[in-house]
Every structure is written in structure tokens, then in C-alpha cells.
């Protein structure tokens, strides 16, 4: 057991801290995608190696050698200072790692740099009305016609499609192959003729996701990632990047601390909420759960550094536990504020900019998106505990 990162890392931490002390002020708050503040901040972070750190220079990254502890220190220090850690989004967090793994040279050159700079925004076209949890049953088709794919079908729940320049999309290219082997992974521009985006308003009141319709959309043949029929494997690689980024325990800790502050300032019947024994006990229960997930996360980090350490199950439960915990935490803030907790939008009693209600709903979305909690339990029981698989029922003809 050794929790220290070592002196050379403490030195690195100091470097990060001096950067933050010098430039932290420029960190944009809630900056819109593509806003000049966001793009400038992103540029400065990349130049200094605080985001896109391990992406090779030739693709616009910082070109650092992968070092988990450096990345961890940067994440910790930025979170502590409440600084914007750089751009996220599905292009950066999912597509870029995938292209680095399986993209062609030309694809890497074309897409990675503008994506990490924040100039090329992506959406993820996986789910369809008939293919949600059972994603492999998707039916959007792509047929090769000379040098072009012709795409027809519909996607749904496509986050940020209304803003995206490009889409990474799963389509069926081999209708006669078994369902997992007939899928391909295509990249194309959202401005291509034949694409229609219809916003869907979600429970927060915003239209963050969309329906996307494809009618004879023509896409150059080479805009496929990996080979025909390999899309399912590529998509799974992407999903594992996605799940790794959900339920981050350091973000949860920040919210827990915000909840403690809230309980020290809000009152009911003239008494601080923190002085209410029932509320306090609920807070302590949450703090215990947050602690357990933080230590679980340390164990996962350690298993990545020490290859003989097995943390497979510890990793497998993170999406399920992390998103449910966060939803409970946000929900508790609403509970203890009573009617005040219901305040939203322009209501003058709204606390913390409405973030408790917003995050409460947002994390319910994350419980569902990216593989629902039930699907996570299927995965944990079948792959983690080796319980028998579901009996397969073939679609009747």
C-alpha cells in the first residue's frame, strides 16, 4: 500500500499549480461551444499539456507520453480549483480515442486536430427508435453505390445533433450477416443533403437531444472506420471510453461538498438543515457511499499502474453505482429544501442556479443513457459473476 505518487510527481503537481495560479482566471464558466473564450482556453490547455495531453503532436495534441498519474494530478488540481478542464463531448471523449486505435492515417489527420481544438463538433448516431438497449438490432441501412454509401433510416436521442458538424454513426451494411457482424461505423458531415434534425425537448426543458432522419444520404466510401461489418467492435471500444468517463467520483465529491455548504446555510423553521438529525444522517450515508466510490476509483487507478492487480469487477460497477449515487445526492438537496427545492428557472428562490434540479434530472438521463442500469446489471452478472446468459429469442420472420 503506497498512496504517494512520489517526489517527481509532487514537482509536477507544483507545475500544474503555478499554471493555475497564473492563468486560472481565464478559465471560462459555462462558455458555449465554439465561443471564443472556450476555444482560446482549449488552445492554451493543449499547448501546456493539460488537455489532449497524450495525443500526438502531428494530430494537434500535446504529444506527451501516456502517464496515468500526470493525468490524475491535472484532473485533481483543476477540479480543486474549480477550473474548466477543457472541452469534452462525444467527439473528444469517444471518437478521438477510437480513431487513434483503429482509424486510418488519413482519418487521424483529417479529424483529430479540429476535433480537439473544438472546431469540429460531433454527435453519436447509435440509438434508433427500434434499437436502444438492443443496439445491435439497428436497421439504418447503408448500401454501397460506386464510391459512395447511400444511407437511409432514423436515429434518435442523438445528443448535440443540432450543433454538430459531423456524426459518427452505426449503420447496417451487411443485411444478410448475423446482426452483430452486419454493422459498420461511418463518419459523415451533418450538412450532407438528406439529413434532417428534429429537436426533442427533454425533461429539463431543454432540447439537448434530437431525432435524425436520413433519406438517401450520400457519403464517400472511405469514410468508414475499420472494415465493413466491424462496426460493432468499434462501437464497443467507444462505449467503454464513454462508461469510463461517467460517474467520476471526484466530481461527485465536489457536489457532496456543495451539499454540505448548502445545509449549513439553508434553514427550515429557523434551524440550519445541517442541525436536523434526520437530514444529517442522510448526508452522512451519502458521504459514506461517496467515500467508498473514491477508494474504488483509487483501486482502479492502481490496477492500471500495476498490471498484476485485478480490478475488473471494481471497474464494471462504476457506471451503475456512480450515476445512481450522483442522482441520489442531487435528489437529497431537493428533498431537504422542500418546496424551495422545486424552484426552477426564473423563480427568485432558486438556489445554486437551479443546478440541483438540473443535475438530478441530468443524472437520471445518464442512468438511462450509455447502457441503462438494468443493462449494467446484466453485464455485471453475466461477465462479472459468470451467471448464465439470457436465453436468446430469435425474431420471427
Amino acid at each position, binding site marked *: *500500500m*503506497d*498512496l*504517494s*505518487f*512520489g517526489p517527481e510527481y509532487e514537482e509536477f503537481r507544483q507545475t500544474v499549480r503555478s499554471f493555475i495560479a497564473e492563468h486560472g482566471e481565464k478559465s471560462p464558466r459555462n462558455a458555449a461551444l465554439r465561443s471564443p473564450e472556450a476555444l482560446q482556453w482549449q488552445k492554451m490547455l493543449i499547448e501546456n499539456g493539460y488537455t489532449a495531453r497524450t495525443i500526438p503532436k502531428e494530430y494537434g495534441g500535446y504529444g506527451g507520453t501516456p502517464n496515468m*498519474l500526470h493525468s490524475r494530478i491535472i484532473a485533481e488540481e483543476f477540479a480543486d480549483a474549480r477550473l474548466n478542464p477543457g472541452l469534452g463531448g462525444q467527439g473528444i471523449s469517444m471518437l478521438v480515442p477510437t480513431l487513434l486505435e483503429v482509424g486510418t492515417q488519413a482519418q487521424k489527420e483529417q479529424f483529430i486536430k479540429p476535433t480537439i481544438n473544438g472546431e469540429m463538433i460531433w454527435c453519436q448516431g447509435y440509438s434508433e427508435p427500434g434499437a436502444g438497449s438492443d443496439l445491435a438490432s439497428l436497421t439504418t441501412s447503408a448500401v454501397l453505390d460506386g464510391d459512395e454509401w447511400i444511407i437511409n433510416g432514423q436515429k434518435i436521442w442523438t445528443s448535440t445533433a443540432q450543433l454538430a458538424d459531423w456524426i459518427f454513426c452505426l449503420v447496417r451494411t451487411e443485411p444478410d450477416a448475423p446482426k452483430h457482424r452486419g454493422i459498420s461505423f461511418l463518419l459523415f458531415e451533418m450538412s450532407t443533403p438528406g439529413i434532417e434534425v428534429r429537436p426533442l425537448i427533454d425533461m429539463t426543458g431543454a432540447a439537448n437531444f434530437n431525432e435524425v432522419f436520413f433519406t438517401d444520404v450520400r457519403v464517400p466510401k472511405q469514410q468508414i472506420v475499420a472494415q465493413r461489418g466491424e462496426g460493432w467492435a468499434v462501437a464497443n471500444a467507444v462505449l467503454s471510453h464513454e462508461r469510463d468517463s461517467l460517474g467520476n467520483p471526484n466530481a461527485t465529491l465536489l457536489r457532496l461538498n456543495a451539499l*454540505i455548504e448548502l445545509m449549513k446555510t439553508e434553514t427550515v423553521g429557523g434551524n440550519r438543515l*445541517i*442541525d436536523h*438529525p434526520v437530514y*444529517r*444522517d442522510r*448526508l*452522512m*450515508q451519502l*458521504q*459514506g*457511499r461517496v*467515500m*467508498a*466510490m473514491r*477508494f*474504488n476509483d*483509487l*483501486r482502479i*487507478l*492502481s*490496477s492500471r*499502474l*500495476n498490471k498484476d*492487480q485485478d480490478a475488473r*469487477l*471494481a471497474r464494471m*460497477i462504476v457506471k*451503475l*453505482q456512480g450515476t445512481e449515487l450522483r442522482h441520489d445526492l442531487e435528489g437529497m438537496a431537493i428533498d431537504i429544501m422542500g418546496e424551495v427545492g422545486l424552484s426552477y428557472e426564473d423563480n427568485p428562490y432558486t438556489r445554486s442556479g437551479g443546478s440541483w434540479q438540473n443535475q438530478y434530472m441530468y443524472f437520471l438521463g445518464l442512468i438511462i443513457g450509455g447502457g441503462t442500469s*438494468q443493462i*449494467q*446489471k*446484466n453485464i*455485471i*452478472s*453475466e461477465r*462479472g*459473476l*459468470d*451467471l*448464465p*446468459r*439470457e*436465453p436468446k429469442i430469435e425474431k420471427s420472420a
Partner: protein
Amino acid sequence: MQFGLSEEQVLLQDNVNRFLDDHASLNAVRDYAAGGEDAALWQGLTELGVSGLLISEDAGGVAMNALDAAIVAEALGYHAAPGPFLGSAVMAPTALQLADPTNTLLAELASGTTRIGIAFNEAIGRRAGAAVEVSGGNINGKSLFAFDSEADAYLVADAHQHLYLISANAPGLSRTHLTTIDKTRRTVELTYTNAQATLVSNNPSVFFQTLDIGRIMLAADTLGAAQNMLDQAVAYAKQREQFNRPIGSFQAVKHMCAEMAAQLEPCRAMVWFAAHATNELPDEARLTACHTKAHLSEVGKFVAKTATEVHGGMGFTDLLGLHYWFKRCGSNRQWLGSPELTREEAAAIQGLI
């Protein structure tokens, strides 16, 4: 950076588990529950170094740390094994060593010739009828649910967080067995009438460090007990068939198992961290010990119930013996502070009260 068990610790874990597989089988547990003795088992563990785990080499121990002790506690919980580990190998040596490292009792504890039990409840959650009053070296009153029944002496805590040692043979001490639901460990009532007590420490920090390490051991015991119940549930779900399929292929059953694993897995890291903090991170030690005890109690309760349900009627029988672990989780939950009390303490430690 390495957050996990070292090679030596994995070896220790394997050794203790192998020994307990042989000597603390379900049958052995049943024998003990029916009134048998734990002396031979404790002797065997002593030979493995367990009794002297936390005792300095000068005093004949092996000078390992709280994480090593937690590994042993987990293995004991996994086997629902009887024995005086919590008091004799963990809490008593911790207190005695902090108070006076030259105390000759330490050597006797290390060699397993003396067993020291613990009577802490009156300092944590005193119940009606119990009280410990010490004046002029004499102790009066009553400690409830002291552990264990065979101890040669007891480490007694009073409301001022002072610790005293009292010999089990002291005139004025009477000891009555208190039957509880958990038959894998025996607790007693100690009644004191002007019995002679020796002050071990009047420093609250000694009391709290002793309490914290005890709580971590109970959490580790629950980790082991709950892991065993989960393992049994998963094995049963693969083998038991209904409606012409293994019940483990029904999603209701699968999700019960997944939920148990999802809650239990982070507990492992939590116990490791809490034990590590005891030795290395004094600022975090108290808070993590309280939370670890409380959180493991909650998860243990959930796993105990759910794993029993996975077994259907068989889970409810004595035949399978699953109930020994169920009750072990249940008593770990109450010992040394129930979850509500330890969480209240956690809040106080942070200045939230």
C-alpha cells in the same frame, strides 16, 4: 503508487484462508454454536502469528499493521469463524501498546497464553441498566455484551474514555453468558462489585484509536461474511433449476446478484483505505473508520438479506447454515456502535454538529 495488497499480504490472506478452510469449516462453526470450544482454533491461528500480528517484535509479536489485521478479519468473517481475534489480537494490543509498549501482557497476548476481551459499550452506546464507575482503583456497575466469554481479563472503557484492565478472576467480578442471535461468538455481562481495576490509559486518543481499529476489523469481518454469502448465492443460482433453467438465468435473480456485487465491491477498497489510514493518515483515520463501519454495516445487511432470498426456502433453513453469516453481519452491525451512532460520530468529527 500502489493501492492494494502487497505480495506478502496476499500470501497472508491465502495462508489464513487455507487454515480456516480446514479448521473452521461449517461443521466446526456448528460445533462451536452448539456449545463447543474455540481454544484449538485459536491455538492454530496463534501458530500462524495471528495473535501477535499487531504486537512489536520486542514483545514477541510480528509487528504487522492494521491492513494485515483487516485481511485476517475478512478471512474470519468469510468463514464465520469463532475466536477472540477482535479483542485479544487487535483492540487489547492496540490499547496496551499505545499506553505502555513495555507492558508484559503484550508478550502473553502474542503467545496466545492470555486472552483479553473488550467491554466498550458503556463508552459508546450505554443502555439502561449498564454503567461503569471507577474510583480509587475499584470498579462498580455493569458492562453489557462484553466480548469474549473465555477471556482471562477485560479491557473496560468508561464514559470518560478511560481504559481499565480487570482480571476475569478478580474478586467482585461476575460474568454471565448473554445469548445472542450470533452463535459464532459469545458475549457476556460483566457485573462489578468493588472489583479491582488497573488504569491502562486516561488518554481519550488511546480509546479512540482502539475503538477505530476495532470498528475497521468489524467492517472487514462483514466484508468477508458478505462476500461469502454472495459467492454462495452465485454458486447456488448456477446450479439450482426451476422452469427447466438455472435460476441464475432469470433476470430477477441475476440483478439481485449484480446489485450485491455492485454494492460490495467498493467496500473492499474502503476497508483497505480505512485500515491504511489508521497507520499512515492520522487526519483521515477517525472519519474513515466511522464511515467504513457504518457503510459496511448497511451493505452487509443488504447482502445478507438478498443472498438468503436467492436461495429460496433453502436459505431459510438451518441445513445450509447460511444463517450463520446472516447473523454475523447482523452482530457486526451493532457491535462498537450501530450505523446511526457511528454516522453521528462522523458528523461530529467534521464539526457538523
